[in-house]
């Protein structure tokens, strides 16, 4: 690891053609991709929401399915950004050598990493918006404030895309990503208030939950769906942005080291 690996990111608008490339590829396989990113969260939302929800009078001051809708939007946006930043970005970097081809043009690695984050966040935006639309059709959103979930989906996407790229930069092969999904993504889904309030956890795990980005995403999303402005909004946004910047910088340093051979 040498000192220029730690240099500040040098960004340019040359990331745009790369984003456009990813979009073109996505357009060719959009049908299956939409199915995966929307059908899966909808099955959880409807199955658990109506099934389990019929046994629960209310949760967090609202019906269980409304409670769950907010959580589902957050975890599905987390998932789509994570999958894109891990599996798809790894394929482009390692298997297809798309990054190598791009770096022979006036585009730099910094531009590529930025484009990967923005593209993965775009996928989050699409899946978040899709799940929100279905939730609205089912009458689960209670005010126009819920439209703020659209930019929130983008922010959640940016945050988890950046964090996921750290794993991509370290991964020797696809198997490695199992660790991240099993030890990071799944525990977050259970600890961060997606299915039940964080307050139900033992005190130690409540403290852990406060440090995790998904908790802060859920804390913004849920009040917006129910119809009021979240408490401590700026803090929650700051945590998500902080994780995003950290992930971007750390992954960039690691990619520079990995590809400097």
């Amino acid at each position, binding site marked *: 690891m040498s000192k220029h690996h730690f240099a500040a990111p040098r960004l340019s608008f040359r990331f745009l053609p*790369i984003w456009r490339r990813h979009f*073109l*590829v996505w357009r060719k396989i959009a049908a299956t991709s939409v199915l995966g990113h929307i059908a899966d969260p909808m099955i959880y939302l409807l199955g658990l929401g109506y099934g389990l929800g019929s046994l629960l009078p209310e949760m967090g001051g609202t019906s269980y399915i409304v409670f769950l809708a907010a959580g589902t939007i957050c975890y599905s946006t987390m998932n789509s950004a994570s999958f894109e930043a891990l599996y798809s970005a790894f394929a482009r970097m390692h298997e297809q*050598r798309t990054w190598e*081809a791009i770096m022979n043009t*006036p585009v730099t690695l910094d531009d590529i990493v930025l484009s990967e984050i923005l593209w993965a966040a775009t996928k989050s935006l699409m899946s978040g918006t899709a799940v929100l639309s279905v939730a609205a059709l089912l009458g689960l959103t209670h005010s126009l404030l819920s439209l703020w979930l659209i930019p929130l989906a983008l922010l959640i996407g940016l945050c988890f895309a950046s964090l996921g790229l750290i794993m991509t930069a370290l991964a020797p092969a696809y198997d490695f990503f199992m660790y991240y999904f099993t030890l990071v993504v799944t525990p977050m889904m259970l600890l961060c208030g997606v299915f039940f309030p964080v307050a139900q956890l033992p005190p130690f795990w409540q403290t852990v939950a406060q440090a995790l980005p998904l908790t802060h995403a859920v804390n913004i999303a849920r009040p917006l769906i129910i119809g009021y402005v979240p408490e401590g909004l700026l803090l929650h946004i700051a945590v998500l942005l902080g994780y995003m910047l950290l992930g971007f910088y750390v992954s960039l340093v690691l990619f520079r080291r990995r590809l400097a051979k």
Partner: protein
Amino acid sequence: MSVVLTAHDLRKSYANQVVVNGVNLTLNRGECYGLLGPNGAGKTTTLRMLLGLIEPDAGDIKLLGLPVPQAAREARIRIGVVPQMDNLDPDFTVRENLMVYGRYFGMLDTDIEARIPSLLEFANLTQKKDVKVPTLSGGMKRRLTLARALVNDPDVIFLDEPTTGLDPQARHLIWQRLRALTQQGKTLLLTTHFMDEAERLCHRLAVMDLGRIISEGSPREMITRNIEPQVVEVFGETASKWAQEFAEIYSTRHEVSGESVFCYVADAQPLVGHLQGHPELRYLHRPANLEDVFLKLTGREMRE
């Protein structure tokens, strides 16, 4: 003749292993320059430093008048690269590959569109323009990679082992295209370990080994400077026994490699005459070539 690339005393080490150890290079406009060397000689690392993709530990590079790596991004606007391993976009068709790649150079879609027909024709891929990359043959993929490297109409083209893995027909077609490029005034820098390729294409070449350039010149100069003009290869079970007795008498220099003996001579007639009296041995008399120079300079041991 104007200079398009200079590199002065380039050095690069990884984890205390020296990969490039003081390389000096000058490329003139319109020439094809070959970098030859066994695996691990430092060819690809040198190319990547010249492109500004890795930072040298020491040394200066000027590419098209711009300092590299500081202004590598600007320099690469006028460079084309054919990488060692194919990295075409498998999700796209032939035409889409050219389109998407042109955009990375900041070219407008209309300008790329205008260039695509001539690029397809150059690469003999006009019929295949709407075919997806995975269905192309190895030779077609290489030609598409070459066409892609030309999308920005570069002044200098870097080619890292452009014909490795191709059949003879495909190699000849690539060679023909590369010659056409030098005739158009493009400057080519290529690495290869095919000596016939270097001999046919390169105006000048350098042999690299262990991170250094150990000899440089035109293919002809390299042969006359480094080696005797005639080679007689002697084969057979008794060849090494024959060599112990006679090789030194009849040749200036000889090398034994398994059941073959390579005899290097200025005048082959006395040796050929002698061999005619040894029917148990087969022999091949030929002029010395670049491969002989290469093996003399870098040795016959395997590099892994």
